[in-house]
């Protein structure tokens, strides 16, 4: 039987799984996190349509959950791969969830009684969750997970759970899956802004990253969609975005452009300006790369709204008792500006997923010098890895925005389907 294994359930992996399953090919969708959805589930709106990210992603997540030919394996990672094209054997390690997946109804009674609060990875560290939790309200599968590292064994959840789904003991499980072909869609990692210490992320409270901002302006995020200064909890009167943080940077060994940060900053600037017309919003950039369909028009719209595009980069963020200080040269006029914004947003770039080197070794595929997956040809074959039968989609190949990730998920699906189909007809 020709199965396909899709590793990584962000938007690219979800799209690939749906397309393959639409041909009647059984798909196993492997996800490390307790929910599918990837980074896209964390975002507020998406450019250039200003669609709510979750509103367009969630129906696809539900389609995946309901599809008779798709099996979701959350909290799971690939341990090893044997065989070759047409007859792969993929060993999966499933981490314990401490929940009976078949009986949990996702009602959330346990979450209400849990007394422990910890930082929520899903909120990029600015919000909290319980020790028994759902990463977010639209999690798929719609069940909870218990975090044994923070659980204090108070026992409240065991008592409150109607179906008795909360487990005291749980263990790692191993699963071996047959696959005709494999799609790798493991996504990206967000640049750690602390690697640019001159910008003071996590030492200056009013310096946040673009992902933290996304969670803040998201209506279902930790601040209920209100933009806040971390120092005072008040709404800032002025914001400066700094572009290319961790992108196009030779000393950091990250020479590539991250493709999304310009548009993401423009999008967030528009959303903020529309809600707070009096707020002073500036984007410090070196080049605005608004290259996609409808993107340049979007950029023009931002300018018309009164968002200031300042061509020049600060080299650091200083602070005194009056607040932040940024020295910037307007490179179009040579004028020096001393700016004192109340909030600074670092537009952090994309890098290869931290787990990628290890995965590449297990998969027997090659990586590029940048750490992203090497494909057969950078122009003509961007989905085949160097190992036949293993395809790659989304930001595992290179930084990509959502439309491009979806397209590459579709194209990897076509390749993976071909292998599975050949096996079935043989």
């Amino acid at each position: 039987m020709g199965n396909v294994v899709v590793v990584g359930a962000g938007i690219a992996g979800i799209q690939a799984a749906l397309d393959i399953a639409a041909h009647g090919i059984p798909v196993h969708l492997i996800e490390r996190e307790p929910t599918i959805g990837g980074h896209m589930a964390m975002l507020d709106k998406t450019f250039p349509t200003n669609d709510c990210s979750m509103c367009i992603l969630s129906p696809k997540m539900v389609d995946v959950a309901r599809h008779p030919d798709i099996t979701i394996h959350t909290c799971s990672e690939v341990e090893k791969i044997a065989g070759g094209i047409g007859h792969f054997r993929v060993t999966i390690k499933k981490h314990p969830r401490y929940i009976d997946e078949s009986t949990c109804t996702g009602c959330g009674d346990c979450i209400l009684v849990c007394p422990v609060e910890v930082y929520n990875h899903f909120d990029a560290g600015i919000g909290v969750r319980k020790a028994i939790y759902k990463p977010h309200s639209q999690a798929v599968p719609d069940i909870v997970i218990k975090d044994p590292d923070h659980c204090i064994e108070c026992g409240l959840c065991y008592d409150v759970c109607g179906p008795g789904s909360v487990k005291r003991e749980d263990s790692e499980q191993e699963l071996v899956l047959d696959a005709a072909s494999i799609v790798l869609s493991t996504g990206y990692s967000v640049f750690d802004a602390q690697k640019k210490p001159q910008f003071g992320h996590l030492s200056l409270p009013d310096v946040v990253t673009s992902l933290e901002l996304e969670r803040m302006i998201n209506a279902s995020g930790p601040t209920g969609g209100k933009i806040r200064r971390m120092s005072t909890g008040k709404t800032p009167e002025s914001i400066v975005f700094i572009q290319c943080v961790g992108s196009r940077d030779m000393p950091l060994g990250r020479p590539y452009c991250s493709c999304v940060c310009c548009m993401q900053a423009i999008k967030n600037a528009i959303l903020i300006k529309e809600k707070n017309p009096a707020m002073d919003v500036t984007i410090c950039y070196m080049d605005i790369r608004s290259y996609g369909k409808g993107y340049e028009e979007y950029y023009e719209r931002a300018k018309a709204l009164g968002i200031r595009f300042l061509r020049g980069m600060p080299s650091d963020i200083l602070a005194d008792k009056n607040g932040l200080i940024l020295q910037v040269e307007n490179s179009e006029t040579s004028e020096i500006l001393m700016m004192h914004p109340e909030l600074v947003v670092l537009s952090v770039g994309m890098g290869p997923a931290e787990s990628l080197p290890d995965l590449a070794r297990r998969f027997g595929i090659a990586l590029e010098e940048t750490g992203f997956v090497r494909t057969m040809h950078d122009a003509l074959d961007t989905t085949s890895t160097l190992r036949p039968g293993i395809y790659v989609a989304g930001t595992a190949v290179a930084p990509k925005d959502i439309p491009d990730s979806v397209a590459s998920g579709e194209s990897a699906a076509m390749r993976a389907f071909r292998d599975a189909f050949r096996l079935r007809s043989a």
Partner: protein
Amino acid sequence: MARTKGYPEALEKKLHDQRYYREDSNPEFTTKVKGISRTIAHMCYQCGTCTGSCPSAPRSTYRIRNFMRRAVLGLENEALTDPDLWLCTTCYSCTDRCPRDIAPTDVIMAMRNLAFKRDIIPVNFLKTVTAIYSSGHGVPNNDVNRAAREKLGLTRDPPTTHMYPEYLPAIRKIIDHYKLKANADRIIKEREG
């Protein structure tokens, strides 16, 4: 070359030159700056991070980014005759921060070298040469400093040519080898009589 669209000849010449078409551009200047500075000025993408880090910028019209542009475009005269060339403090902040791994400070030093070859140099820089020639120090010790040093429990003079004047001739030999003192004296005399 076939004439296109009836452009005037001069414009056509400009358009044909893919490199850069300002009349005063000298490609050799770019090469020379690169040779002396040993840095990759042509990789500059004009982000302005260097000016963002520069302590001289908010206090003057000096813009290091602008000099990087001149290095790339070969604008020799514009770079070497701009008095701002001498406002770099050589703090190396820009070199630390440039995302292209360029050393803008070294580009400035290379340009100063080239300017000096054309006798373009402010007199105070030449007086530094004279000071080093006579004392081994750009800023020689003085009585105020000596008193301060004594208070801190240090020797009145630092363990340099001030304490060991017998090493001065060697320093002078190096300076003389490059005719630095002779040129400095000549230019100071020309300017100050």
